């Protein structure tokens, strides 16, 4: 009950924020929306299926670079097309990568995803002519729903139409994910997480379902990544770097992976916290390490576990 009330209040706050005349806070939330979408995907893999990826940033970067290539090289400015292209690219890449990765579980899966993430990072970094190397690629301001909105300056564009656009995509992503988790696919994935051998004996094709989860996670990652690069106007190789994957896992643990809204909360809190702590001290990574340790030891279910303690703690 309290959680529902808090959730409604949070939704209302998010809807009204741009009207409150806080452009800084409003732009701060834009990356949180992108991350939240990517994390919904990552959590299908980790929270639902039990596979922890340390290479999810690969797909975030893939989405980011898709947006960059389309807007600055190919002249495609429609954000709807950019998002669809990011999703399609993710499917094309995650198919073969996933085929290799889902043959393994636990640490081996984690290390393989890490390896693929770093492979992609090296590709982005070294293939200067294609990707711009360490300078990255520019992401031009996209056209939303066919409306150029050129009369708006960048801040007005980001805190107005783009803010609501990103929020709408996040809402849609959450609705789709919610349906997925409640579907037979979600049921099968949860059975795999608990006991893959037993799930197999009930006719669940474990490898195929794990691959499906991997590809869906990649699509969410790429869509989130495409939204992530619009405010900064830049896609750079660090998007694919392993520390970025680590940040995604951090956000997930912070928000709580065994609650549906854990990823969304984790993304928002991480971004706001990072902003606060970075403005206070240059040792923000040190502080974040300490926070991660405290979360893992004392709040293994993350912030959502504190807000919604009804369910039994994850074993």
């Amino acid at each position, binding site marked *: 009950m309290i959680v529902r009330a808090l959730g409604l209040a949070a939704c209302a706050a998010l809807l009204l924020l741009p009207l409150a005349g806080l452009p800084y806070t409003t732009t701060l939330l834009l990356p949180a929306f992108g991350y939240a979408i990517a994390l919904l995907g990552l959590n299908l893999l980790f929270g639902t299926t039990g596979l922890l990826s340390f290479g999810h940033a690969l797909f975030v970067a893939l989405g980011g670079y898709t947006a960059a290539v389309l807007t600055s090289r190919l002249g495609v400015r429609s954000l709807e097309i950019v998002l669809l292209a990011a999703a399609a690219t993710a499917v094309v890449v995650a198919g073969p990568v996933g085929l290799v990765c889902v043959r393994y579980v636990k640490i081996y899966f984690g290390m393989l995803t890490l390896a693929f993430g770093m492979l992609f990072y090296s590709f982005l970094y070294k293939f200067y002519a294609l990707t711009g190397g360490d300078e990255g690629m520019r992401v031009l301001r996209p056209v939303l729903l066919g409306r150029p909105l050129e009369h708006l300056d960048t801040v007005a564009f980001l805190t107005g139409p783009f803010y609501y656009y990103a929020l709408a995509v996040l809402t849609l992503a959450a609705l789709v994910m919610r349906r997925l988790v409640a579907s037979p696919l979600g049921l099968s994935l949860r*059975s795999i997480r608990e006991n893959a051998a*037993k*799930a197999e*004996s009930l006719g*669940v094709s*474990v490898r195929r379902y794990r691959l499906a989860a991997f590809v869906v996670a990649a699509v969410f990652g790429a869509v989130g990544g495409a939204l992530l690069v619009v405010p900064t106007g830049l896609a750079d190789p660090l998007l694919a770097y392993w520390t970025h994957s680590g940040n995604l896992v951090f956000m997930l643990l912070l928000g709580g992976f065994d609650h549906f809204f854990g990823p969304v909360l984790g993304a928002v809190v991480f971004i706001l916290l990072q902003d606060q702590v970075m403005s206070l001290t240059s040792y923000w990574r040190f502080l974040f390490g300490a926070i991660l340790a405290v979360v893992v030891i004392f709040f293994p279910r993350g912030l959502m576990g504190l807000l919604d303690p009804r369910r039994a703690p994850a*074993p």
Partner: protein
Amino acid sequence: MLALRDVDVYIQASHILRKVSLEAAPGELVCLVGRNGAGKTTTLRAVMGYLRPAGGTITLAGQPIGGLPTHAIAARGVGYAPEESAVFGDLTVAENIELPTWTRPGGRPAAERVARAYDVFPRLRGFATRGGTQLSGGERKMLSIARALALDPALLLLDEPFEGLSPAIIPQLGESIAAIARLGPAIVLAASNIHHVPVYASRLYVIERGEIVFAGLPQDLRGRPDLARIVGQAL
């Protein structure tokens, strides 16, 4: 329905099953009796595709299934309730039973399969929204069998369904298994004790050190005092 011919199974370097042959026809309840470690579970796991036979053939309705992946064997209609139950604790009782109706579509409608599972184990109906971890040992056994039944199996493998249960619940579970037998699937039931073999068992196999040492009707055991030690009965 199910036929094993001269099946050999090795686990690492150990020769666990030696030329095991076994058959179960539709509507039959076949019991595999033997002491702990004799090879009962290995036999069932080999049928289920967890272990690959080194020799011999396993056929289901005339089709060879040796070497198929486990999920493909389940999809052909083999339900498996292992000894340790392995109920999904994070899923509710209803979700546990529902799962195989999705993984093996076709045949009877899902609603009918779920209803059949609850009809056989009416006690579970009251627990539908409970988590799998909130069940007693006997209830977990029931759920494990109910879930295998929801697969709409042509063959049901039950590994030691009575093991570790309170004596009070054993007759109840026995009646449920009888009810399943009346529904028509072939059943292979592994038991370590002859007292756990239901009176309505069609046939009996006795396994010892990976070999089938007796195959026949339960009453034929009377003439085999040498087997009494194995099956735990004063004959």
